[in-house]
């Protein structure tokens, strides 16, 4: 087996989420199965690879969705692609969420911006067995109402009995009827005791830093704070060295790493 080889994936659909974020629905050949929390290396043909965590349910076997923000070379090329085009993927890599630990507890999911994409995969995996948890709390913050991803789905998710949803935008406008403020404002008035639950966060580094700080203030245990520490992961399987974080490698020991494993570092969020 050659771990550097990719498999082909046809683009089935491209969903425009926001002006800079799109969801690509892919059909890998052969099919690629993954667990929530794992990531793939996606190739923009002729340009190169970048790591992404799928945003679809791991129980969906036919296709796989990846929600991507246009920020650089690879993502710009991906935005040029249309349904019917082909790209390449390899993986999955990384350690899945240990969701067995979540049974019987409150699960707090905190997403910032496009950081909700990998959390959506976890959220959908949890919904598969929703009664196993005390409650799933999905808290999401975006910059403005125009930057909110999966807007069409939130309405459906809000109807699910065991799910609580809170959303905020940094800058409000006349169309936004929900909370205004950075995502941590959603953590005020938490409807459960932190010792009865755990928290999973993903978003830009600054959001992760302050979310972790707030979660610790609220009393979440270090080992109950799950953070997506996605760095420059080139190979995906712990060889190339780029994503080292202290003694860990984000690609093979993460990318989701609990706070107790990185809290000793000078600044894990830089």
């Amino acid at each position, binding site marked *: *087996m*050659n*771990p*550097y*080889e990719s498999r082909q994936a046809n683009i089935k659909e491209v969903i425009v989420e926001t002006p800079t974020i799109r969801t690509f629905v892919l059909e890998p050949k052969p099919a690629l199965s993954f667990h929530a929390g794992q990531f793939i290396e996606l190739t923009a043909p002729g340009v*190169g690879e970048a790591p992404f965590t799928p945003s679809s349910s791991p129980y969906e076997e036919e296709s796989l969705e990846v929600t991507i923000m246009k920020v650089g070379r690879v993502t710009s090329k991906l935005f040029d692609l249309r349904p019917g085009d082909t790209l390449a993927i390899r993986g999955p890599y990384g350690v899945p969420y240990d969701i067995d630990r979540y049974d019987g507890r409150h699960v707090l999911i905190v997403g910032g911006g496009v950081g909700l994409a990998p959390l959506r995969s976890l959220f959908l995996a949890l919904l598969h067995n929703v009664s196993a948890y005390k409650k799933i709390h999905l808290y999401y913050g975006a910059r403005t109402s125009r930057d909110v991803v999966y807007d069409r789905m939130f309405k459906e998710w809000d109807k699910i009995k065991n799910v609580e949803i809170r959303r905020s935008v940094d800058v409000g406008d006349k169309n936004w009827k929900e909370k205004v403020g950075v995502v941590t404002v959603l953590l005020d008035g938490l409807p459960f005791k932190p010792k009865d639950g755990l928290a999973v966060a993903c978003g830009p580094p600054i959001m992760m830093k302050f979310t972790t700080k707030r979660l610790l203030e609220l009393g979440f245990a270090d080992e109950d704070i799950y953070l997506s520490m996605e760095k420059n992961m080139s190979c995906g399987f712990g060889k190339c060295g*780029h994503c080292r974080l202290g*003694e860990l490698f984000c690609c093979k020991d993460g990318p989701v790493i609990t706070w107790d494993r990185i809290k*000793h570092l000078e600044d894990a969020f830089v």
Partner: protein
Amino acid sequence: MRSLFLPLASIPAFYTRLAKYGETYYPRVLERHATYEVWRDEEIPAEELYQALKMIRPVEPLKEFFLGSRERVASFPQLFSKDIKPKVIVGAKDCDIRSLIEIQDNVYLKGVLEDPFYKERREKYLVVTVDCPEPADTCFCLRIGGKPYSAWGGDLNLSFGEEGIIVDVLSAKGDEIVEKMGDVLTEVDKKEIKKRDKHRADAERKLAKINPEEFAPDLPDRIEHQLDTGFWAKAMANCVDCQACERICPTCYCFLLYDIPVGKGVERIKVLDWCYHAAYGRVGGGMNPLAHFSHRLRNRFECKFMAFPRNFKVYACTGCGRCIAGCTGKIDIRKVLRAL
């Protein structure tokens, strides 16, 4: 362990026999430094070959053979099969064979996946290590877990006796090779072994004299707690960012993958990468956790002397001294480690 004797005059014949196994690289002195060359049955005086074997580690680290600085690792949609032919490398010192076994093997053969290219080379390449009887001022293997001689890790080891070379057989592959050596190798005399042991003890003494001080045993903790950017800025004050230290380091293992369009397909290329490079840590969107050079310098020390020993119980440094010898700014890694 089986030991045989190689008379000085038979060194060319020894290389010729090795070359039957695969392309054979041997050390040759060029501008006062040993460097690897391909053996082509040339008429080189045995004495010249003998003196080259006695030099410190060749300029090129052993990883040059096993990792390569640039290679194709995949292509699509059409796949390719790798074509790795046997090679023989003569002249690796203990510092280099340890860089392979203790560092590169841990990275490339262990963990979640193996690197199939590295693995095949490790299986197909024969390494003939050589004692290091005359350490240089830049050498410090003794202070970082090594010795100026190698009795393990390679397939054969060459050491220096009274009138020739002692060949220790260290692996089954090595045994198979010496079986086919015929009269090139003879029985070894006890007085040769005795002389070899004296050479080894002398080399150890010389190394201890060059490096009188041990390093602090808690280097990982010292690095973890050295957060003063002023310390690292001072340590790198003379650095001109040439990255020579990383390119010639036998233990640096980082690489980068990139794709190039070829015809209607794509080829994936693996190139060795250097953590002093400004874009090393940069992610999509331009964020760079190692944007400042002092952070990159600390990152390198953290990798070698904190993360690696915590993960694999060994420093990612074998004391070969190439980084000291090759530094344009005359930075001595030993001084940085002692100042921590």
